């Protein structure tokens, strides 16, 4: 069996901002320090530091999952630098329209060499900016992995998917229109592949996107030492091993329409169940 720790080799960070557009959380200095601590904990617990299981060094990444604007990069640069020093990949989600507004600044950011992966996120309600294809091509030319997040209809309308410099490159598309699900599941599935360390704007830690914000289920906070969190203690409000290997024991067969959050149906059902219960999974 694969140890649970392998699931926590990557981190996804969710930011927030105030009405003035300033990034409000989590504290980026604390985040940078926490990334160092997380990396040390991972390397120690897996045995990498002792020369064992070195293959677990692959595919480690810290990524910002919230779509940010270019001006927010300044505060994140230090965290990206920490990741580079640790040999951990760094990924960003950018507000695609904002990036197109100042494409030169976006290109300069890509060219710094601190970013390995970029997701360009677009809302569904407006046409894509005319320079979207050029921006995507620039990211590819600088050897970034590129994901486009948004409406497939808008991507097709814009011509980006047939543009020179984009066609023929390794591109990932993530449709994001919310849809109402028509049916319910009759089988659970392991959560292992969806587990990673999630950091929400208040610095709270969660094992997956489906549980984000359910404070009674958090695994700790970036202000705490690892030993104080569930990662260090090994015990917490969730049966992480059971979730990783078997998945949640949700109320299967419930005939209740659920509006998708963009997560797998299983996650939406599990979250709905936990919110109802107000208790552990």
């Amino acid at each position, binding site marked *: 069996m694969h140890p649970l720790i392998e699931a926590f080799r990557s981190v996804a960070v969710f930011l927030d901002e105030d009405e003035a557009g300033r990034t409000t959380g989590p504290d980026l200095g604390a985040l940078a320090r926490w990334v160092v601590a997380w990396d040390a904990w991972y390397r120690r617990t897996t045995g990498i530091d002792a020369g064992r299981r070195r293959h677990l060094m692959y595919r480690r990444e810290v990524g910002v999952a919230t779509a940010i604007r270019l001006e927010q990069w300044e505060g994140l640069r230090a965290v990206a630098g920490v990741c580079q020093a640790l040999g951990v990949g760094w990924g960003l989600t950018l507000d695609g329209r904002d990036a197109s507004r100042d494409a030169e600044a976006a290109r300069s950011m890509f060219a710094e060499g601190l970013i390995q992966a970029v997701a360009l996120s677009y809302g569904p309600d407006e046409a894509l900016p005319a320079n979207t294809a050029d921006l995507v091509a620039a990211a590819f030319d600088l050897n970034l992995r590129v994901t486009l997040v948004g409406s497939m209809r808008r991507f097709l309308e814009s011509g980006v998917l047939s543009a020179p410099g984009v066609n023929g490159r390794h591109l990932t598309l993530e*449709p994001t229109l919310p849809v109402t699900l028509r049916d319910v599941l009759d089988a659970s599935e392991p959560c292992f592949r969806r587990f990673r360390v999630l950091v929400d704007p208040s610095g709270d830690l969660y094992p997956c996107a489906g549980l984000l914000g359910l404070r009674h289920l958090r695994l700790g906070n970036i202000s705490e030492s690892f030993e104080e969190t569930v990662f260090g203690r090994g015990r917490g409000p969730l049966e992480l091993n059971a979730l990783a290997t078997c998945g949640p024991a949700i109320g299967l067969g419930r005939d209740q329409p659920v509006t998708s959050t963009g997560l797998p149906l299983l996650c939406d059902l599990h979250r709905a169940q936990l919110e109802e219960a107000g208790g552990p999974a």
Partner: protein
Amino acid sequence: MTRRNLEEELALVHEMPMSFNALVIEYTSRCNAKCAMCYQAAGPQGSDLIGKATLDVQTAERVIREAIEIETVAPRCHITGGEGFLNAGTLLHLVGVARDVGFADVTTTTNGFWARDLAHGVAMAARARKAGMTSMEISWDYWHEPYISADAVSNSLEACFDAGIEANLRILSSRSHSYADALRGLRPDVLELVGRITCAPVMPTGRGATEVPPGDVYAQGTLDDSCHGMLNLTVNARGSVSPCCSGLDQIAEQLFGNVTERPLREIVEALDRSLLARVLVFRGVGALATMIEETGVRVDGRYTSICHQCWSMFSDTTMILALEDALQRRRELGLQRALDGMRQHVVTA
């Protein structure tokens, strides 16, 4: 090559264990389609490369049970063909075995033909979900069109969504046939239901080597690249094992072992010790090409990617023999130098 790059590469060759993102079982070489770009050259009569072959179910089950115990294999099991749904019973049985032994992610690649009729597709996806399938890669592009209807593909995406199986729509393109061209053939509403769409350029390997015009193919990366971060432990329909499913799994030569003859763990351990395999994955196929040319055999440099080069070289018996000769010479030279060093030590003493 800079000294630092060489030191890094040698550190990988000597120290890093070979690891795999998934176990891939290509249990049949048959497919109901005969797409021009198919890297397996699969078709109704099997593969043009490895013939008509099916891995027997008992062997496939054993391989799945053995693989979950190998810690350098990530807990993802990909069961496919050819076209895996040609024998849905076998496919879903193996999916169930993979789930039961503890693979966290159980997937397949399919052309979606089984969803020609939406109701049938929905029922099939529900079966797959119940068996333990977590994700499905559904292939669609210009070259699939003569064999698979766009409606079937659209229905298969809708069926996956209904069943709660994450669908990864895989699109290939060339200079003449873009991602947009392929996507426009599908129903717009189902494109919004897909988990993700993975777009990549077509490779001139397998049937593509002769049927896709060379000028239509995009180059990918450089020929100095290596593949050690992208490996999948692959067992083809003949039981032959390879470290990837991008072409090396489809050569007639059996380079690394066969699961019908040896336990999988033994093969993986031998693969991890193999100088040929380690140089190939950690230093890149370009390093092997250099060795081959030292024997006087010319390596054609007109490759569009390392996968293209790797498949081409290992599909050529002359090159394989030259490589084995080159590696043997290196071993002997290394041993001779070690012995010379020892003799000098004795003289000095």
